[in-house]
Protein backbone atom coordinates (compact mmCIF):
# COMPACT_ATOMS: atom_id res chain seq x y z
CA UNK A 1 0.00 0.00 0.00
CA UNK A 2 1.43 3.40 -1.01
CA UNK A 3 2.05 5.79 1.88
CA UNK A 4 2.34 9.60 1.65
CA UNK A 5 6.11 9.10 2.07
CA UNK A 6 6.20 6.81 -0.99
CA UNK A 7 4.36 9.46 -3.01
CA UNK A 8 6.73 12.26 -1.88
CA UNK A 9 9.69 10.04 -2.72
CA UNK A 10 8.28 9.37 -6.18
CA UNK A 11 7.79 13.09 -6.83
CA UNK A 12 11.33 13.82 -5.62
CA UNK A 13 12.67 11.11 -7.93
CA UNK A 14 10.72 12.55 -10.87
CA UNK A 15 12.01 16.05 -10.05
CA UNK A 16 15.61 14.75 -9.92
CA UNK A 17 15.21 12.87 -13.19
CA UNK A 18 13.63 15.87 -14.89
CA UNK A 19 16.33 18.23 -13.63
CA UNK A 20 19.03 15.83 -14.88
CA UNK A 21 17.38 15.69 -18.30
CA UNK A 22 17.23 19.51 -18.49
CA UNK A 23 20.85 19.80 -17.32
CA UNK A 24 22.11 17.29 -19.90
CA UNK A 25 20.13 19.07 -22.60
CA UNK A 26 21.86 22.33 -21.67
CA UNK A 27 25.26 20.59 -21.52
CA UNK A 28 25.00 19.04 -24.98
CA UNK A 29 22.84 21.49 -26.93
CA UNK A 30 23.34 24.91 -25.35
CA UNK A 31 26.83 25.06 -23.79
CA UNK A 32 29.47 25.81 -26.39
CA UNK A 33 32.54 23.66 -26.89
CA UNK A 34 35.49 24.87 -24.81
CA UNK A 35 38.91 25.94 -26.12
CA UNK A 36 41.40 23.20 -26.96
CA UNK A 37 43.48 24.16 -23.89
CA UNK A 38 40.51 23.13 -21.72
CA UNK A 39 40.00 19.95 -23.75
CA UNK A 40 37.50 21.07 -26.41
CA UNK A 41 34.52 18.75 -26.46
CA UNK A 42 36.06 16.82 -23.56
CA UNK A 43 35.50 19.81 -21.31
CA UNK A 44 31.83 18.79 -21.09
CA UNK A 45 32.98 16.10 -18.66
CA UNK A 46 33.36 19.00 -16.22
CA UNK A 47 29.55 19.26 -16.06
CA UNK A 48 29.36 15.84 -14.36
CA UNK A 49 32.80 15.78 -12.74
CA UNK A 50 32.38 18.95 -10.64
CA UNK A 51 28.77 18.15 -9.54
CA UNK A 52 29.96 14.65 -8.55
CA UNK A 53 32.66 16.26 -6.40
CA UNK A 54 30.04 18.63 -4.93
CA UNK A 55 27.87 15.64 -4.04
CA UNK A 56 30.84 13.91 -2.43
CA UNK A 57 31.52 17.00 -0.26
CA UNK A 58 27.83 17.30 0.61
CA UNK A 59 27.54 13.61 1.48
CA UNK A 60 30.57 13.66 3.76
CA UNK A 61 29.36 16.87 5.40
CA UNK A 62 26.11 15.04 6.22
CA UNK A 63 28.17 12.11 7.57
CA UNK A 64 30.16 14.56 9.71
CA UNK A 65 27.13 16.29 11.21
CA UNK A 66 25.13 13.09 11.72
CA UNK A 67 28.11 11.25 13.21
CA UNK A 68 28.52 13.99 15.82
CA UNK A 69 24.78 13.87 16.54
CA UNK A 70 24.90 10.08 16.88
CA UNK A 71 27.89 10.14 19.23
CA UNK A 72 26.08 12.70 21.40
CA UNK A 73 22.57 11.23 21.41
CA UNK A 74 22.99 7.54 20.42
CA UNK A 75 19.78 7.99 18.42
CA UNK A 76 19.55 5.45 15.58
CA UNK A 77 18.18 7.96 13.05
CA UNK A 78 21.51 9.84 12.98
CA UNK A 79 23.41 6.61 12.45
CA UNK A 80 21.07 5.65 9.59
CA UNK A 81 21.52 9.03 7.92
CA UNK A 82 25.32 8.94 8.32
CA UNK A 83 25.56 5.45 6.85
CA UNK A 84 23.32 6.34 3.91
CA UNK A 85 25.24 9.54 3.17
CA UNK A 86 28.60 7.74 3.39
CA UNK A 87 27.49 5.19 0.81
CA UNK A 88 26.34 7.90 -1.57
CA UNK A 89 29.55 9.85 -0.96
CA UNK A 90 31.68 6.83 -1.86
CA UNK A 91 29.66 6.32 -5.08
CA UNK A 92 30.15 9.92 -6.18
CA UNK A 93 33.80 10.08 -5.14
CA UNK A 94 34.28 6.98 -7.29
CA UNK A 95 32.66 8.83 -10.19
CA UNK A 96 35.03 11.77 -9.61
CA UNK A 97 38.00 9.37 -9.69
CA UNK A 98 36.67 7.79 -12.90
CA UNK A 99 35.66 10.90 -14.87
CA UNK A 100 38.79 12.83 -13.90
CA UNK A 101 41.26 10.36 -15.46
CA UNK A 102 39.00 9.94 -18.51
CA UNK A 103 39.42 13.70 -19.09
CA UNK A 104 43.11 13.64 -18.11
CA UNK A 105 44.22 10.83 -20.43
CA UNK A 106 43.73 12.74 -23.70
CA UNK A 107 44.53 16.18 -22.21
CA UNK A 108 47.55 15.42 -19.97
CA UNK A 109 48.60 12.26 -21.80
CA UNK A 110 48.34 10.26 -18.57
CA UNK A 111 45.54 8.69 -16.54
CA UNK A 112 46.93 9.73 -13.18
CA UNK A 113 49.42 12.03 -11.50
CA UNK A 114 50.27 11.95 -7.81
CA UNK A 115 49.48 15.62 -7.39
CA UNK A 116 47.79 17.11 -4.31
CA UNK A 117 44.21 17.20 -5.65
CA UNK A 118 44.16 13.70 -7.05
CA UNK A 119 46.03 12.13 -4.13
CA UNK A 120 43.87 13.81 -1.47
CA UNK A 121 40.72 12.74 -3.33
CA UNK A 122 41.97 9.16 -3.38
CA UNK A 123 42.64 9.39 0.38
CA UNK A 124 39.08 10.68 0.85
CA UNK A 125 37.69 7.72 -1.10
CA UNK A 126 39.80 5.22 0.87
CA UNK A 127 38.72 6.77 4.18
CA UNK A 128 35.03 6.37 3.51
CA UNK A 129 35.41 2.95 1.91
CA UNK A 130 37.06 2.10 5.22
CA UNK A 131 34.04 3.58 7.00
CA UNK A 132 31.71 1.26 5.08
CA UNK A 133 33.94 -1.79 5.69
CA UNK A 134 34.05 -0.97 9.40
CA UNK A 135 30.26 -0.97 9.54
CA UNK A 136 29.87 -4.19 7.58
CA UNK A 137 32.50 -6.12 9.55
CA UNK A 138 31.51 -5.01 13.07
CA UNK A 139 29.95 -7.90 15.02
CA UNK A 140 28.33 -5.48 17.48
CA UNK A 141 26.30 -2.98 15.38
CA UNK A 142 26.22 -0.39 18.20
CA UNK A 143 29.98 -0.44 18.66
CA UNK A 144 30.52 -0.53 14.89
CA UNK A 145 28.27 2.48 14.48
CA UNK A 146 30.17 4.45 17.12
CA UNK A 147 33.59 3.59 15.65
CA UNK A 148 32.35 4.50 12.18
CA UNK A 149 30.98 7.78 13.55
CA UNK A 150 34.42 8.66 14.91
CA UNK A 151 35.92 7.88 11.49
CA UNK A 152 33.15 9.91 9.85
CA UNK A 153 34.09 12.94 11.96
CA UNK A 154 37.86 12.60 11.57
CA UNK A 155 37.69 11.73 7.86
CA UNK A 156 35.90 14.98 7.07
CA UNK A 157 39.20 16.82 7.69
CA UNK A 158 40.23 15.69 4.19
CA UNK A 159 37.34 17.50 2.48
CA UNK A 160 38.77 21.04 2.85
CA UNK A 161 42.22 19.64 2.04
CA UNK A 162 40.86 18.25 -1.25
CA UNK A 163 39.05 21.50 -2.01
CA UNK A 164 41.94 23.88 -1.27
CA UNK A 165 44.73 21.60 -2.53
CA UNK A 166 44.82 23.44 -5.88
CA UNK A 167 45.42 26.74 -4.00
CA UNK A 168 47.84 25.45 -1.35
CA UNK A 169 50.08 23.35 -3.60
CA UNK A 170 51.24 23.40 -7.21
CA UNK A 171 49.01 20.90 -8.98
CA UNK A 172 48.31 19.79 -12.52
CA UNK A 173 44.60 19.82 -11.75
CA UNK A 174 42.79 22.92 -13.15
CA UNK A 175 42.18 25.42 -10.35
CA UNK A 176 38.92 26.88 -11.52
CA UNK A 177 36.04 27.21 -11.83
CA UNK A 178 34.60 26.29 -8.44
CA UNK A 179 31.08 26.41 -7.09
CA UNK A 180 31.99 29.58 -5.12
CA UNK A 181 33.55 31.26 -8.18
CA UNK A 182 32.29 29.58 -11.34
CA UNK A 183 33.85 32.08 -13.76
CA UNK A 184 37.37 31.76 -12.33
CA UNK A 185 39.97 30.68 -14.92
CA UNK A 186 37.26 29.09 -17.00
CA UNK A 187 36.14 31.17 -19.93
CA UNK A 188 32.60 30.06 -19.05
CA UNK A 189 30.01 32.30 -20.67
CA UNK A 190 26.29 32.59 -19.99
CA UNK A 191 25.16 29.33 -21.64
CA UNK A 192 27.95 27.37 -19.97
CA UNK A 193 27.17 28.83 -16.54
CA UNK A 194 23.52 27.91 -17.05
CA UNK A 195 24.53 24.33 -17.87
CA UNK A 196 26.88 24.24 -14.86
CA UNK A 197 24.29 25.48 -12.36
CA UNK A 198 21.61 23.26 -13.86
CA UNK A 199 23.92 20.27 -13.35
CA UNK A 200 24.59 21.31 -9.74
CA UNK A 201 20.88 21.64 -8.99
CA UNK A 202 20.08 18.34 -10.71
CA UNK A 203 22.78 16.46 -8.83
CA UNK A 204 21.66 18.01 -5.53
CA UNK A 205 18.09 16.83 -6.13
CA UNK A 206 19.48 13.42 -7.02
CA UNK A 207 21.37 13.38 -3.72
CA UNK A 208 18.22 14.23 -1.76
CA UNK A 209 16.30 11.44 -3.47
CA UNK A 210 19.09 8.85 -3.09
CA UNK A 211 19.49 9.74 0.58
CA UNK A 212 15.77 9.35 1.25
CA UNK A 213 15.66 6.02 -0.63
CA UNK A 214 18.72 4.69 1.18
CA UNK A 215 17.46 5.77 4.62
CA UNK A 216 14.16 4.01 3.91
CA UNK A 217 16.16 0.87 3.08
CA UNK A 218 18.03 1.22 6.38
CA UNK A 219 14.75 1.47 8.31
CA UNK A 220 13.46 -1.64 6.53
CA UNK A 221 16.64 -3.45 7.57
CA UNK A 222 16.07 -2.43 11.19
CA UNK A 223 12.47 -3.70 11.05
CA UNK A 224 13.57 -7.05 9.65
CA UNK A 225 16.35 -7.41 12.20
CA UNK A 226 13.99 -6.59 15.08
CA UNK A 227 11.48 -9.24 13.90
CA UNK A 228 14.20 -11.87 13.41
CA UNK A 229 15.71 -11.15 16.84
CA UNK A 230 12.25 -11.38 18.41
CA UNK A 231 11.71 -14.72 16.71
CA UNK A 232 15.11 -15.98 17.85
CA UNK A 233 14.34 -14.98 21.43
CA UNK A 234 11.10 -16.99 21.30
CA UNK A 235 12.56 -20.00 19.50
CA UNK A 236 16.38 -20.17 19.25
CA UNK A 237 16.24 -23.55 17.48
CA UNK A 238 14.06 -22.28 14.63
CA UNK A 239 15.55 -22.65 11.16
CA UNK A 240 16.44 -19.30 9.69
CA UNK A 241 16.55 -17.56 13.05
CA UNK A 242 19.54 -15.24 13.30
Amino acid sequence: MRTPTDTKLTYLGIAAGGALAVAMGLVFFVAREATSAMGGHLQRIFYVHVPSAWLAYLSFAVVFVCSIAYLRTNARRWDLLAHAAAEIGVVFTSLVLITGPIWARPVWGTWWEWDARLTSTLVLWLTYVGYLFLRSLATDPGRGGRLAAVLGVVGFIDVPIVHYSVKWWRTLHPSGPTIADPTASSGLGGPELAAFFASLVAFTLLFAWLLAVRVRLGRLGDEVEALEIERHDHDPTAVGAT
Partner: protein
Amino acid sequence: MSETAWTVVAFTAVAVGIGLYLASISLRRRNLSKRLAQAGARRRAGSR
Protein backbone atom coordinates in the same frame (compact mmCIF):
# COMPACT_ATOMS: atom_id res chain seq x y z
CA MET B 1 40.15 7.63 -29.34
CA SER B 2 38.42 10.87 -30.33
CA GLU B 3 37.37 13.58 -27.87
CA THR B 4 33.73 12.71 -28.50
CA ALA B 5 34.35 9.05 -27.71
CA TRP B 6 36.08 9.89 -24.42
CA THR B 7 33.20 12.21 -23.53
CA VAL B 8 30.68 9.47 -24.25
CA VAL B 9 32.70 7.03 -22.12
CA ALA B 10 32.71 9.49 -19.20
CA PHE B 11 28.98 10.20 -19.31
CA THR B 12 28.23 6.50 -19.74
CA ALA B 13 30.40 5.72 -16.72
CA VAL B 14 28.41 8.21 -14.62
CA ALA B 15 25.08 6.79 -15.78
CA VAL B 16 26.24 3.20 -15.22
CA GLY B 17 27.64 4.07 -11.79
CA ILE B 18 24.40 5.66 -10.60
CA GLY B 19 22.39 2.86 -12.23
CA LEU B 20 24.44 0.15 -10.49
CA TYR B 21 23.98 1.85 -7.14
CA LEU B 22 20.21 2.07 -7.66
CA ALA B 23 20.18 -1.59 -8.72
CA SER B 24 22.03 -2.57 -5.53
CA ILE B 25 19.48 -0.67 -3.44
CA SER B 26 16.65 -2.37 -5.30
CA LEU B 27 18.18 -5.85 -4.79
CA ARG B 28 18.76 -5.23 -1.09
CA ARG B 29 15.21 -3.94 -0.69
CA ARG B 30 13.80 -7.02 -2.43
CA ASN B 31 15.85 -9.30 -0.18
CA LEU B 32 14.75 -7.44 2.97
CA SER B 33 11.09 -7.43 1.89
CA LYS B 34 11.28 -11.21 1.43
CA ARG B 35 12.81 -11.67 4.87
CA LEU B 36 10.20 -9.33 6.37
CA ALA B 37 7.38 -11.35 4.80
CA GLN B 38 8.93 -14.65 6.02
CA ALA B 39 9.52 -13.30 9.53
CA GLY B 40 5.98 -11.93 9.64
CA ALA B 41 4.50 -15.22 8.46
CA ARG B 42 6.45 -17.21 11.07
CA ARG B 43 5.38 -14.79 13.77
CA ARG B 44 1.71 -15.21 12.78
CA ALA B 45 2.12 -19.01 12.64
CA GLY B 46 3.80 -19.00 16.06
CA SER B 47 1.06 -16.95 17.67
CA ARG B 48 -1.71 -19.39 16.63
